[in-house]
């Protein structure tokens, strides 16, 4: 209890200190660089919120956001690197497999963000090539105006009921690392047979993991096969007629790493910004957006079930790296796009 209060006070102290933990010299150089470009796959409004908050600090470093899906960010960076163009400083996606590749090629460089000492060990790495910025689960959901709680699917298999044909929305693994991750977990559990049957349901295909939510909210689709828990719960809080489904088989946990590029054009600003990402202020912001974070001191919204209360499915980075491409290929084959 006492420890909690002390860390709480510390957090408040940290909040009021403008430079977090970055030392004078780094800060001075960062100011000279003037900006930091963040390649990030977190939903646009959250990413923009973080950037705006950072810019409001007026530290002399401007946050430039480039938001896209995990796969597209990865391709874009490698493409730019090939042409000798270095724009991005900090990278954050939902594909741990990509980070393994980036680490193997030394495209990212170790950096331990300030203030992560007391973090949940599952969110930090020993070699510090990346730190997990946020975690969420891939959540199936439905429109409460169209489907009653009684009729709503309870299990993954319920989605294959012919009565939902043409009424489901599914996100694309080539775009969303979150979805790739979730699909691998589900295939591990039920085999590809599940997705063969899912394809027969003729779901509408959207790109980003959160992309299905507005379609279901409008009632254009009735069910979502899986979306980012944080976007869903936030929109439910906002009053959209939606409800999550928690199948007994479990929900896929997706942890999303953040790292610093070796050839960052603004290396000092990159470090200052990374410190900011893992500062109490941003950690609490992410928690308010219904995301799980490594900092044990944040307060989560009541509507967010604690991670240890959820039956979780999870895969490691190596498995993700190995199954990433075959999963995308199979999806294209089954769903046509």
């Amino acid at each position, binding site marked *: 209890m006492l420890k909690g209060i002390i860390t709480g006070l510390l957090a408040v102290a940290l909040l009021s200190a403008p430079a977090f933990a970055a030392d004078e010299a780094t800060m001075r150089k960062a100011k000279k660089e003037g900006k930091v*470009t963040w*390649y990030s796959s977190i939903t*646009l409004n959250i990413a*923009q919120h973080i950037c705006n908050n950072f810019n409001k600090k007026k530290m002399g470093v401007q946050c430039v956001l480039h938001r896209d899906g995990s796969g*597209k960010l990865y*391709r874009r960076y490698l493409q730019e690197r090939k*042409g000798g163009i270095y724009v991005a400083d900090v990278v954050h996606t939902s594909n741990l497999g990509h980070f393994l590749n980036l680490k193997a090629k030394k495209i990212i460089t170790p950096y331990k963000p300030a203030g992560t000492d007391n973090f949940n060990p599952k969110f930090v790495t020993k070699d510090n090539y990346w730190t997990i910025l946020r975690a969420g689960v891939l959540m199936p959901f439905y429109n409460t105006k169209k489907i009653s709680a009684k009729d709503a699917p309870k299990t993954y298999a319920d989605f294959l009921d012919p009565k939902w044909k043409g009424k489901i929305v599914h996100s694309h693994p080539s775009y969303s690392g979150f979805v790739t991750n979730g699909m691998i977990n589900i295939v591990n559990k039920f085999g590809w047979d599940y997705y063969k049957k899912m394809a027969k349901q003729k779901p509408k*295909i959207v790109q980003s993991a959160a992309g299905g939510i507005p*379609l279901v909210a409008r009632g254009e689709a009735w069910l979502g096969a899986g979306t980012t828990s944080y976007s869903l719960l936030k929109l439910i809080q*906002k009053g959209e007629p939606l409800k999550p489904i928690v199948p007994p088989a479990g929900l896929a946990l997706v942890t999303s790493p953040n790292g610093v590029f070796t050839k960052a054009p603004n290396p000092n600003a990159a470090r200052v910004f990374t410190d900011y990402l893992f500062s109490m202020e941003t950690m609490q912001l992410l928690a308010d957006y219904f995301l799980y974070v490594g900092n044990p001191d944040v307060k989560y919204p009541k509507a967010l079930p604690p991670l240890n209360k959820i039956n979780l499915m999870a895969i490691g980075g190596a498995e993700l790296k190995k199954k990433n491409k075959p999963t995308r290929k199979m999806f294209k084959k089954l769903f046509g796009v």
Partner: protein
Amino acid sequence: MTQDAQQLPGMISGGEPSATRKFDYTVIVWVVLLILLIILVANPIFQLFKESFFVSEDEAGGFTFQNYIDAFETDEYYKPMYITMMLAISVGSISLVVGAVMAWVVSRTDIPFPNLIRNGILASFVTPPFLGAIAWIFLAGQNEGWLNKWIRGLFGLSEEFYLFDIFTMKGVVFAMSLYTFPLVFIVVLAGLNNISSDVEDAANVAGGGTFHTMFSITLPLVAPSLFAGFILAALEAMILFGIPAVLAIPAGQHTMTTQLRAFMVSEDDLLGLASAYAMPMLILAIGMVWTRGIVLGRRGYATVGGKGGQRRPQKLGVWRIPIFVLCMIPLVCAIVLPALALLTTSFMKNLGGGLVWSNLTLWNYHFILTNDAVRESIYNTIILAIMAATGATIVAAISAFIAQRKLIRGHQYMGFMATAPIGIPGIVLAVGLFAAYTKQPFVLYGTLWIMFLAYLTKYLPLAYQTSNAGLSSIHPELEESCRIMGANRLQVFKDVTVPLFKTAVIASWILVFMPSLRELSASVLLWTTNTKVISVVIVDFYEETLLGPISALGVLLLLITLVAIVIGFRLVGRDFMRSAG
């Protein structure tokens, strides 16, 4: 030029100018134009061709045919080609019927408010097709589309019933036709205006009714225009990216353009595969443009003689009002309904909340105006459109001037060069530019310049045709008489040609500026963090299904376009968009 200035007036009639002077002048112009053509067209297409034969892993590989095998072997890549062909044929045919009938009605009958119809068609011509497609999701979504709900309410039908489903290939054909039929209209209208009514009158006198005359006299006479219109619309359907990206992908269907982009943004390096896949599109497009040229080129009908002939409207009689209403349907579908849908959605708080007072908000506008990407994209879009319009207009005006006044040797090829890019689909051009300018030593990727090159190439033909048409109406005698009076070429150009030529130049500037505002198919492959434009931000938001902010941004884009049109009307008069065909 300097030698020109010292030239005595008498020399012009004094026989051939000295050979060296003429040689210099020609060479400079040709070298400049050639370099431009190499940068804009030849190099990108060459790189595209080259990439298609190379293994394009991140660590570069050697020569291979594998890309072609991959691209054309499997069903999943073959199917988009089939779908694209079907789309081109159906959209071409529908556009042909709708566009031709409306052109006939406007040109030849006593339909009420012909100007309303004409302006409406021009308005749908400048509406961004991807915005139209997004708006039609609100209108004709299977479950929640307003039209479906309205019909259900009207007839008391069950929730399950729907008349329209925009997320189908029929929906794609419908949405595409809305924005391609104006092409047919413009071409056929021009064709009809060149035929005098004498022959039709003769048919009437001989006892033929209105519709009989149309089918047996007018129709065969405008056959070349009809064919050209069909080709234009089919080509547009083939190379459109926005509409299939919005409507076909959710339905689980790729067209060639969306498949091409999927290759380009895949996390694996698929540049070689994309290049191979672009080849059939390139060949088809060039073939279509070529056929159109042949058909339009042979103006073999002796009756088609200038605008001199008198045109008398056919009487529609009792059909006058019904036909007018029919003509309004495509316009309402292309402009009025989409604009209304976007406008209302842009003010809605919860998408599931419907249009009630408590569900109204300015949040979407706040969202887009406080979003960095959006603000930067508005700035980039306007800068790029100004750059493209200015660049294309200058190049087009100079080449048209040289071609028309036969100023240098080989002037007859000038037109061909300036209009050559017309056969290159925007997205294919973008793959080529990408292949050519992302590598050392010419790295343009990541700057606005690569997009500028794309826009310039894409719209140069349009600017050239406008300038050329404008110039051909200025008699060279005017210029020659000034030369005789002692003015040099520069002075003549400045004091005589330019003032007369101004209208065409302004028209061509606006004609490039407007489509540049909404260019998507090339931008979508070439944009980077610092070079976003409004159209790619809209597609970006669509991929996150941010329907509210998209609507707000769409309203903004429509407003910018509207302002451009109003300025255009003010400066050049209402006719400036006529030359668009």
